[in-house]
């Protein structure tokens, strides 16, 4: 088994990922399929001194040429050198899951069927005669409970058997006589055409289904065997599956969704749906900011006082030049440390979001919001990335992959940055506590709300102008609620936290150094802040912000630095006004001189809406694969931020000053 390669294929929600995580543990790598933005996961499964290569294919319902994920899966299975396809199915929903199984078998590579979630099947009173099912289908069948690791040994044994056997490939699936006759015809006619690279039966079926890719490959037009070949074949598959189920499955109970239904009665109920969702989100934010806050405060002291202090005295005592000490302590530790102190918040936020996703609740959320979203012309599935944006826009924008329609996806990506991410929060807190003492919560909430409103308004505008088109249909499977596997959950959260820390280690590190240089040097060498490069740059940009109420070079520069990472706006504000050691009171004094409540709010509005950080720009480029849209997003956000901030400042000044 050493060095063998297996691919995991199956429907979404069948526990495939749980199995993948169980087999590969931390030994896996997440990337992208070449040239596209579909996630590709591969890893190594160590068993009995053997290393088996495992690839997790995207969750798919079928293998048509219509969707990117499906094309990727089928191309991969046909063209790669994998030894076995492991088809993971949810044993408690066999009827629909087997639909993909029939297609996988037709591809011609060895298939092993894994009946996952056998415990749930048992709970529902479903008994499956595994032996006879395996006989009938002609492939090995392994019962499993991936979450508990049951069945993994058996899987290994079966894989070993398959890999070491000499048996010729054969397909036991049989459709209606008439259809089989046509298949035989076309298999004869076209089966050998393509260098035997493809299974003849598969080719024949694809011809009947009028599969565009295969017809292209063969260089023929569709022979139009039936009015809708696809429908006929689909119906045949389900007929075959029905007979399989009748023969090898016994249902004792009728209701398969009882517990989930009772929960859904509340969570999906017209009247309670949105309030209960509001409660859930409120709870999550509360936990993130209070529990997270406990850790954050301690981490802050640890990094910025204890650690920084120790490094400072250590380096100074070692005779290192003052400027280098400053670079390390103020620049690097100040910048990177500022970001790291937020890791507890981020971790908790991601933990809850992963929990909601893995349990199945997020699917309900998309469903609930579809009603409202479609009034703006958006697909309900846009809602989840928007919510994720409250944590961090980077994974949020990656989350737009669930939108199959390109236009929907682009709109979701372009409007996501208006959802106020965690990094902007410290800036709100800083200014709110100085200028709106006692009303911090309301002010902060108003900003979040403004972000949502602008996002929806822009989405509506985009729908009507740049992205006119047919509304995409909202179809989504509703899996029953599940308690997520602890291991999977931890792996999810760790992946995201790791991303965040890496961002800190690289982008923000570099940015901190560069900004430190800009603020401490000018053409004649080291100097104080007032005369630095930074000051000059700031003074050039500052007039743009004058109509918004904050036309000082310090504000301009701190906003510019915010494009690198919003987290450093706070630290830089202190540095730029020369009060970095003076604590909150010193900062408050200085800021009160420069801002008034109206311009402070306008400033926060600008921070809310303008170009998000470099990491987001990077993700937008990756997900859209287009410089055009990336550059567009950078500029249009600055424009919108300027206009809205201008509005608030002018109107606010008129009303309140």
């Amino acid at each position, binding site marked *: 088994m050493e060095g063998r390669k297996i691919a995991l294929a199956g429907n979404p929600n069948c526990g495939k990922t749980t199995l993948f995580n169980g087999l590969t543990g931390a030994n896996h790598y997440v990337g992208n399929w070449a040239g596209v933005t579909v996630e590709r996961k591969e890893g190594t499964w160590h068993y009995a001194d053997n290393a088996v290569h495992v690839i997790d294919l995207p969750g798919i319902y079928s293998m*048509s040429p219509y969707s990117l994920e499906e094309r990727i899966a089928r191309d991969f299975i046909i063209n790669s050198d994998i030894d076995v396809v492991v088809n993971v199915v949810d044993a408690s*929903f*066999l009827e*629909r899951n087997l639909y993909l199984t029939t297609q996988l078998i037709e591809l011609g590579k060895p298939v092993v069927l894994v009946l996952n979630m056998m415990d749930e099947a048992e709970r529902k009173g479903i008994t499956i005669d595994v032996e006879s099912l395996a006989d009938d289908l002609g492939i090995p069948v392994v019962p499993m409970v991936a979450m508990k690791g049951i069945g993994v040994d058996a899987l290994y044994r079966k894989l070993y058997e398959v890999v070491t056997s000499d048996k010729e490939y054969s397909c036991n699936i049989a459709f209606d006589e008439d259809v089989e006759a046509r298949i035989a015809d076309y298999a004869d006619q076209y089966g050998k055409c393509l260098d035997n690279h493809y299974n003849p039966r598969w080719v024949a079926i694809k011809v009947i289904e009028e599969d565009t890719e295969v017809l292209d490959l063969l260089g023929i037009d569709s022979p139009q065997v039936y009015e809708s070949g696809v429908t006929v074949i*689909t*119906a045949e598959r389900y007929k075959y599956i029905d007979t399989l189920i009748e023969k090898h499955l016994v249902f004792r109970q009728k209701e398969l969704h009882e517990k989930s239904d009772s929960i859904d009665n509340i969570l999906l109920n017209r009247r309670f749906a949105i309030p209960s969702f509001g409660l859930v989100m409120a709870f999550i934010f509360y936990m993130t900011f209070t529990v997270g806050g406990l850790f954050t405060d301690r981490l802050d002291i640890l990094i910025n006082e204890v650690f920084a202090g120790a490094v400072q005295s250590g380096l100074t005592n070692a005779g290192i030049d003052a400027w280098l000490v400053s670079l390390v302590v103020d620049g690097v530790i100040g910048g990177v440390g500022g970001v790291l102190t937020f890791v507890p918040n981020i971790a908790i936020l991601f933990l809850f979001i992963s929990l909601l996703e893995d349990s199945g609740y997020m699917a309900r959320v998309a*469903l609930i919001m579809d009603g409202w979203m479609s009034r703006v012309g958006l697909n309900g599935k846009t809602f989840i990335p928007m919510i994720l944006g409250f944590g961090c826009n980077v994974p949020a924008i990656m989350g737009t992959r669930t939108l199959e329609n390109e236009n929907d996806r682009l709109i979701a990506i372009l409007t996501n940055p208006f959802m106020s991410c965690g990094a902007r929060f410290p800036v709100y807190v800083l200014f709110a506590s100085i200028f709106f003492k006692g009303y911090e919560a309301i002010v902060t909430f108003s900003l979040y709300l403004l972000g949502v409103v602008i996002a929806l308004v822009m989405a509506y505008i985009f729908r009507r102008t740049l992205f006119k088109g047919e509304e995409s249909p909202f179809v*989504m499977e509703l899996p*029953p609620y599940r308690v997520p596997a602890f291991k999977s959950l931890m792996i999810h959260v760790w992946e995201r936290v790791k991303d965040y820390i890496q961002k800190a280690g690289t982008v923000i590190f570099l940015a901190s150094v560069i900004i430190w240089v800009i603020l401490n040097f000018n053409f004649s060498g080291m100097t104080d802040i007032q005369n630095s490069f930074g000051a000059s740059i700031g003074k050039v940009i500052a007039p743009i912000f004058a109509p918004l109420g904050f036309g000082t070079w310090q504000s301009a520069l701190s906003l510019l630095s915010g494009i690198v990472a919003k987290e450093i706006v706070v630290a830089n504000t202190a540095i730029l006004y020369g009060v970095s050691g003076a604590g909150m009171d010193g900062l408050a004094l200085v800021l009160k001189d420069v801002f008034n409540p109206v311009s402070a709010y306008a400033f926060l509005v600008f921070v809310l809406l303008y170009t998000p950080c470099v990491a987001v720009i990077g993700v937008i480029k990756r997900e859209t694969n287009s410089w055009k849209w990336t550059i567009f997003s950078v500029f249009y956000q600055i424009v919108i931020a300027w206009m809205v901030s201008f509005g608030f400042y002018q109107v606010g000044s008129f009303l309140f000053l």
Partner: protein
Amino acid sequence: MPLKSVQSGKEVILQDIDWGMRLRKKLEDMGLTPGVKFKVVSGKEFGPCIIEVRGTRLALGRNIVSKIQVNEVN
């Protein structure tokens, strides 16, 4: 009649889907083949439309439920 008008708890048979090839194929893959019998779990009174077809729950958005034609089963 359109699926939109069906009450919760009723069983229906699929007649036709009035949308493009892609959606029809997608729905067929999920089990909604012509002539299949399925149940409306949660219809117009409860918010979004949820159906149960071939043992699986599917949620269907506003814009499609008016385009799916079904016949009620008595």
